[in-house]
């Protein structure tokens, strides 16, 4: 009897939960809806694409493919750079003696709090002097600053959970620190690396601020700029704009579906103690 009422209540919660989720995701539905609606009917604001068309996508995909490719390159390179810098640092900060460790930890916290617009101003000035404006690798270096402090702290937290005896045993067997890192620490930290990589990719892919300041007129620009150019155009086409927006969302949406538990792990890292 009591389990029956419990089930009954639980299903009511599901109904409420679905409703709340629908409200939350409505803007995304609206984006897809507009992207599939024929130009003549967009201003009617139908609740579903009554005047259905794929035209916006066929127009847009040809123009935006190079931007998507550039974003993919930037995203993957940012992931690689972030992992290369952050994983060894996490090992040192969690397992080795590092002079000035407390100061470094503090700087990593502050680094995450620095507004991107301040970094962009500084980078603009530096890149201007060095002739690095409008380059893809300039953007990769700048984008990596969004993820590196977070990545170091995540690796440090994760690697401090690795048993010290395991590493000491390796040293007794004559393994160097480098070998211990490569053969024991890194393989054990795979989950942390996936979370770091995921976030580094999403942040680089989504970056608007660095792209719009450091790569304003380059030949190879990321998808956020492809989208931004549409917004700035005199003759704004909402259907094509929304189709581009959908294309730009696909990679992050896919990553969320594939790796939801890593996303939740990364979000809570640092903010909540287990």
């Amino acid at each position: 009897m009591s389990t029956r009422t419990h089930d009954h209540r639980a299903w009511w919660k599901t109904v409420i939960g679905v409703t709340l989720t629908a409200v939350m995701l409505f803007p995304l539905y609206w984006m897809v809806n507009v992207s599939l609606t024929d130009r003549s009917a967009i201003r009617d604001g139908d609740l579903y694409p009554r005047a259905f068309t794929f035209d916006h996508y066929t127009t847009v995909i040809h123009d935006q493919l190079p931007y998507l490719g550039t974003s993919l390159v930037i995203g993957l390179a940012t992931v690689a750079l972030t992992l290369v810098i952050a994983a060894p640092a996490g090992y040192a900060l969690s397992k080795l003696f590092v002079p000035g460790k407390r100061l470094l930890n503090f700087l990593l916290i502050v680094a995450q709090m620095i507004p991107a617009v301040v970094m962009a101003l500084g980078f603009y000035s530096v890149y201007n002097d060095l002739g690095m404006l409008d380059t893809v690798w300039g953007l990769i270096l700048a984008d990596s600053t969004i993820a590196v402090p977070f990545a170091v702290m995540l690796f440090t937290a994760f690697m401090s959970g690795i048993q010290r005896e395991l590493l000491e045993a390796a040293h007794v067997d004559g393994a160097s620190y480098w070998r211990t890192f490569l053969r024991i620490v890194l393989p054990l930290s795979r989950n942390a690396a996936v979370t770091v990589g995921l976030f580094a990719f999403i942040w680089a892919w989504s970056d608007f601020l660095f792209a719009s300041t450091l790569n304003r007129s380059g030949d190879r620009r990321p998808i956020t700029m492809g989208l931004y150019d549409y917004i700035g155009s005199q003759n704004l086409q909402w259907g094509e704009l929304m189709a581009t927006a959908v294309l730009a969302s696909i990679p992050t949406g896919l990553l969320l579906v594939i790796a939801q538990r890593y996303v939740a792990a990364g979000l809570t890292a640092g903010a909540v103690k287990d």
Partner: protein
Amino acid sequence: MSMTLLEKSAARRPARTGDATARRRRLMRPGVLAGIGFVSPLVAYMALFYAYPLYENVSMSLHRFTRATYVTGEAPWAGSAIYREVIASPQFWPTVSHTATFVVVSLVFQYSIGLALAVFFQRHFPLSGVLRGLFLVPWLLPIIVSGTTWQWMMDADSGVINRLIGVFGVDPVWWLNTDHSLWAVIIANIWLGVPFNLVILYSGLQNISPDLYEAAAIDGAGPWRQFWSITFPLLKPVSAITLLLGFVYTLKVVDIIWIMTRGTGASQTLATWAYSMAFGKGASAVIKYSEASVVGSILLLIALCMGFVYLAVQRRQEA
């Protein structure tokens, strides 16, 4: 920066041991060398890609940079003159007040909606995991995507929001014009911040023992009483960190505002003001690098203070 980092800690150490050779021996130990070796890429990276750009930013705020500076390389020393000009400018205090409104209102709603949802999801029910996952989607999409979508939904003539409130007999609102733009961007920003609050508060709730609720229920405490006597007090440490991080993240928001309104009218915050002065195309037609850097340096100072607050909160929680 790497040198000062090492020097500082090395300089502090002998004071404790009082013996230079012991210090040297300690620094020569293979473990120490390995530690330095593994951390040095990060230190070099922080020096090149954090310290250097930030130094440039502060330097620009103390020299008079103009567009011509990038051609001639001339930027005369100005000291605190540009700081005084910016603070005295008629835009400064209104912008500070918009920023405060944007941050406070966003935080209050993000936190309370996030907390309400976290409590809602606290006990499992059919599909709860999937739905919680779906709530993350807005947080992960590129902000430029969400921004353009909100812009279209808030369109005065054919936006779906005006259509919705029209059903209830409310007159259409010019969401994105000068007067209402602050509220428009706050609404979009609350929507963006709810997933972050939900996930963190939810995982905080998972650490509260169900026994407490059972004991309270036996004592006759209803859900409302349970929330205020158990959930809310025990969640305080997590709430403090969530709000602190939320404050920092909200203060630095540029993209959602810029994409929706170009930071025009009431939606101009300190961050978008700095952006528009340096990179133009918005409220400010003339490029003003030095003025932008001044605002940037103010934001930097706030970030530094928040870093100390974060450390203090963390330390108190460990104690």
